[in-house]
């Protein structure tokens, strides 16, 4: 069950209640004058006239005179009356949605202002209307579009819609019968609202691109978002669909730079070529990835210790301090975990992110083999640990008896 309206009044009483609200908001009796003759009929036979009067006197100019606390209940009463009069809420051209969306304030009220209508109230109404409609209704897709417009225009915090819409957007749009193209455009419009380029949104992009193909334009948006984000290792975004799109657009300079970046190769972008990207941050992130690539390659090579690294063997660093700064950045971003011995200038590696990218079949096969052999070693050692515990116990018992 989604939202349900429970109103215990007769329709006529609801109309009288709404009449009072509108009259007090407009501070005149023009609505009463139109409505009263129509209410004289006990059966309310002139439904179309009543509906027309309702729309005519429920314009945003009148409704926005209500306070924030009065506005939402009044709109719900209007919704209830219209549905009782036979207006299909799923009809996006009924005029109801226009009234609601146009009531959105153009400037945000101050925090001290408790009376003016807030954008969150408009979102709340659209949210309830969304829930009143059946899952298969196409209008649900239009309501989502309205919500995105309000978030964009009113500069609302993206966190308000990030998970509440992001996690279910595709499911809702698919249920409402929206075409794949529209789903894709709505999703990428939704993503564009995140001005903080958060890690959670990157996860949303990841799960979306697993199910939908990525066009050249969408790939550019993905790359710009990923590079602008604080998240250093974005290799998890490279699934089969993204890899195919990267391969198809490899001639593009941005795509080529991104491919190098996710592979852990050092990139040095210049602000002249990529003016709309935070070039300095990207170059710094790329250094971290290049360091983690070095660690992962060396730790799996046969002629190097798995975990011990001397300062002197680290490439692309100018001094010990430079390496330490870089390493702290890498640890902070979660790419590398380990211990640093500054006196002996040695780094003990505990964990490093590996680059598993779709399309790199040879590397992935090798990674699978290493994982398998590690698991088998682990399994064998676990069996032996059990034996060690048992034999130690016996030893202790025997020693005691002696």
């Amino acid at each position: 069950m989604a939202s349900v309206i429970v109103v215990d009044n007769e329709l006529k009483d609801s109309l009288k209640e709404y009449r009072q609200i509108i009259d007090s908001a407009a501070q005149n009796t023009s609505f009463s004058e139109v409505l009263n003759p129509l209410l004289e009929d006990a059966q309310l036979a002139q439904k179309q006239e009543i509906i027309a009067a309702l729309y005519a006197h429920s314009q945003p100019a009148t409704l926005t005179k209500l306070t924030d606390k009065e506005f939402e209940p009044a709109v719900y009463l209007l919704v209830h009356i219209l549905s009782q009069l036979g207006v299909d809420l799923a009809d996006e051209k009924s005029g109801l949605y226009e009234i609601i969306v146009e009531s959105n304030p153009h400037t945000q009220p101050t925090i001290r202002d408790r009376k003016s209508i807030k954008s969150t109230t408009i979102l709340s109404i659209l949210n309830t209307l969304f829930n009143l409609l059946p899952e298969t209704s196409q209008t649900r897709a239009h309501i989502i579009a309205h919500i995105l417009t309000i978030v964009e225009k009113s500069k609302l915090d993206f966190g308000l819609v990030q998970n509440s819409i992001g996690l279910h957007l595709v499911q809702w749009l698919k249920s409402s019968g929206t075409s794949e193209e529209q789903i894709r455009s709505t999703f990428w419009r939704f993503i564009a609202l995140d001005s903080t380029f958060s890690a959670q949104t990157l996860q949303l992009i990841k799960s979306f691109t697993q199910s939908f193909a990525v066009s050249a334009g969408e790939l550019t948006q993905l790359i710009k978002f990923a590079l602008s984000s604080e998240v250093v290792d974005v290799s998890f975004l490279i699934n089969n669909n993204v890899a195919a799109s990267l391969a198809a657009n490899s001639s593009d300079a941005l795509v080529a730079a991104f491919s190098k970046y996710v592979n852990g190769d050092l990139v040095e972008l210049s602000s002249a070529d990529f003016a709309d990207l935070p070039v300095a941050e990207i170059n710094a992130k790329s250094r971290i990835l290049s360091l983690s690539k070095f660690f992962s390659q060396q730790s799996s090579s046969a002629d190097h210790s798995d975990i011990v690294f001397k300062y002197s063997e680290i490439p692309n660093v100018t001094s010990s301090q430079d390496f330490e700064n870089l390493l702290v950045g890498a640890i902070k971003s979660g790419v590398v975990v380990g211990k640093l011995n500054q006196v002996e200038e040695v780094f003990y590696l505990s964990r490093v992110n590996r680059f598993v990218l779709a399309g790199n079949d040879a590397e992935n096969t090798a990674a699978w083999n290493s994982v398998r052999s590690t698991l088998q070693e682990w399994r064998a050692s676990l069996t032996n640990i059990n034996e060690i515990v048992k034999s130690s116990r016996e030893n202790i018992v025997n020693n005691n008896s002696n």
Partner: protein
Amino acid sequence: MPEQRSYMHLVRPNVAAPGAPAANGPSTVKIQAPALFQILEIVSKQVLYTDKRIIGTLLGSRSDDLSEFEIKHAFMVPCNETGDSVTIEDHTHKTLYQLYKKAHPKDAVLGWFGSSSTIDNTTGLIHDFYSKGSDRAYPYPAIYLNVDYLKDNRISEPKLSTYIGAAVGKPVSGVQLGWKANINNYIFTPIPNEVISSSVTEKIALNNLREKSVNTASFVLDSAEDASFLSAQLEAVTSNIDKLLAEISNVDNSDANLDLLRLLSNNLLNKPQLLTNLPELERLFSAHNQDVTLIEYLTKVIKEQIELSARLTATAEAEKKY
């Protein structure tokens, strides 16, 4: 994989409750596992009386900004439905609430629960009862938890839905006494809920319930395994590794497998060296055991020394007397 949800919840709607904060934000309901069991036990009585409504009171705590409701306890409140009206035994509700309040002074009435397949005018009436008056949710909005588990008188998996009642129409000023026809108007808007287990013991109990077969005649939890707990845990890990090895023995390059590979290679490949270095592990383990044994010996020696000294003192004093 996110939970499939057909409804949207961005912000809490405007509610007719003076205690509700002016700023709207999202709300969520957390149901503690013991409270859920109580609720399920109560609503299961609906099977016996299909024509009778079973309802109860939800107790717990709410955050100041109403972003979180936590249901900690529940009790049944008898009610009788006749036609369009409903009679709730207010006295029982008050007595049980006062009793609960003595043990949990910080908790309050959050709302009510029931088991119904539809939301109708009676739902609105009951919600109104819980939204107004003392010893109820007032001045905060009441929440409604519905447990839908009967489909054509057949028992199915319980489906939990939680609602908040948005105000409809003209706001009512002040507290209204009695039930007036124009005040029990609501839009029941769904809000997300989740079942939580608040303590480690509850988690262990829930895991045990999940693992053990419930319909056996003697439902006894096996605690005799405690002695070889380490071995059991090692075997559990080994069997998990076996399952994982079987799973990854033949993999393709699908996105799900790539995610798995990423997770495994990021976390496994730089494993602690000690795990595979058996002689070293054995040496450390026996060294540790020797340390423990040494401490035990020393403790024993000191204890015996003290006892001996006490006996000697006692004997010396006894000899003095004679």
